[in-house]
């Protein structure tokens, strides 16, 4: 016999259902200025560039649009923000918005 004796899928169906239900929808981090205007990520990536903030919300905001009420973190607050987003750029285009990897409505994890 060249076939696995048994295949048990315990996590896969849950992940599939969650992905289809949209729980895989990412929260996006936008770089905004003091007026909550969405701007290029590069402004927030500079180490000493006060006056720019990371704003966290759902996807779909364009450059120049105004982010509504939401959580903001000063872009110079290095303690609150480990450097993130250093991988993934080849799979997307444009310099606006950045996936935070946090999923709206909770994350996924699997323990054994």
């Amino acid at each position, binding site marked *: 016999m060249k076939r696995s004796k048994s295949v048990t899928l315990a996590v896969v169906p849950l*992940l599939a259902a969650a992905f289809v239900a949209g729980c895989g929808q990412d929260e996006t981090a936008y770089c905004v200025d003091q007026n909550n205007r969405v701007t290029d990520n590069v402004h927030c990536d500079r180490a000493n560039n006060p006056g720019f903030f990371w704003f966290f919300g759902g996807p779909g905001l364009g450059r120049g649009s105004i982010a509504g009420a939401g959580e903001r973190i000063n872009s110079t607050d290095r303690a609150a923000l480990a450097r993130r987003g250093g991988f993934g750029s080849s799979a997307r285009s444009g310099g606006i918005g950045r996936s935070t990897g946090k999923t709206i409505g909770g994350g996924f994890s699997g323990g054994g």
Partner: protein
Amino acid sequence: MQRHDIEPRQGWPAIIEEQGLIYWRTPLPDGEEISYWHEGAHYSLTSEEVYEIEAAARLMLEMLIEAGDYIIEENLFAQMGIPGWAVPRIKETWESEPPMLYGRFDFAYGHDGVPKLLEYNADTPTGLLESAAVQWFWARDVFGAGVDQWNMLHEMLVARWRELAQAGRLPGTKIHMLHTSQERSGEDFMTIGYLTETARAAYLLCDLLPIESLGFVDGRGFVDLAGDDVRTAFKLYPWEWMVHEDFSSLALEHMGDGPGQTTWIEPIWKMLWSNKGILPVLHRLFPENPHVLPAWFEGEQPAGLESFVRKPLLAREGANAAVVLDGELVEEGPDQDYGDEGFVVQTYTDLGDYGGGARPVLGVWTVDVEPAGLGIRESDGLLTTNTSRFVPHVIA
């Protein structure tokens, strides 16, 4: 090997989605959809055929080790489009052998019955869930519990995780399973999800994390969203992209199994095997081997070569590949901007028409350095691309 039409199971879309194959609808440019999973047909192979293909894969793995040594000795990195800053780590990990998990050979299997290597997807192979699980359930549903299939993938993946854990080769308290949040069909996510399933079955703790949210803290190393250290990371994101991204130098500096370091699976040396430049290297070293198609770095092919496939060094799913027959361009893969690093030219081989114009490519899975199973994709055209379809198989 034969192809047979067969009645699909009642309600098959719900069945395969429950098993994680949520990405079976492939949208076409004209707005139509085709199904990537095709259980209206199946292939049957004899045991002898399976043993021959398995032997070819085993031999290929041995030849690949020689090919890797040759690339390093001859310093072919630049010709293969591998950036110089990645080379020291590639050489070092090639020697130190950090954990590796799996890969997939693509073989042509024309009517002469000799498997011929088209390429080796050593770094980020997909098609795993449908091979290891979905076609396993299909075979059992359609032919009963006694059916055979070349498919030890699930068991061998679980055993491999267990072996690595027991040998203490997976640092940290859990494995971070990195997917990309940019991929919207669910293929990337569910492949990572399925590998998480196999690691859990080996009693390992896993956390799923988008690679985009991987963090880095100076003096500490890579961290997840909770701030926990990322000591062992499995990624389904190619090294050929990673080495050009912002965290490249940090990943190279902090690679290893010590504190503040990350053990990456697959290891970075897999850039040697997953690169199409491996094809001309294999031909150079083993010109007489029947499983190796004559291939050259572009510009080095003999004058008068009339029928060949031109492939970018770095690409996937037939993107930016072109088929030339008798001097005429007959088919091109989708344009996805690959090819900046250069191309290889591989002698054309007929995939074989197994009925209804279907041309199969045999995906032969490897776990560590052992052949582990088979997943067949077929196309109506000459190239196997993102519009090809997965067709299950049995050993009959």
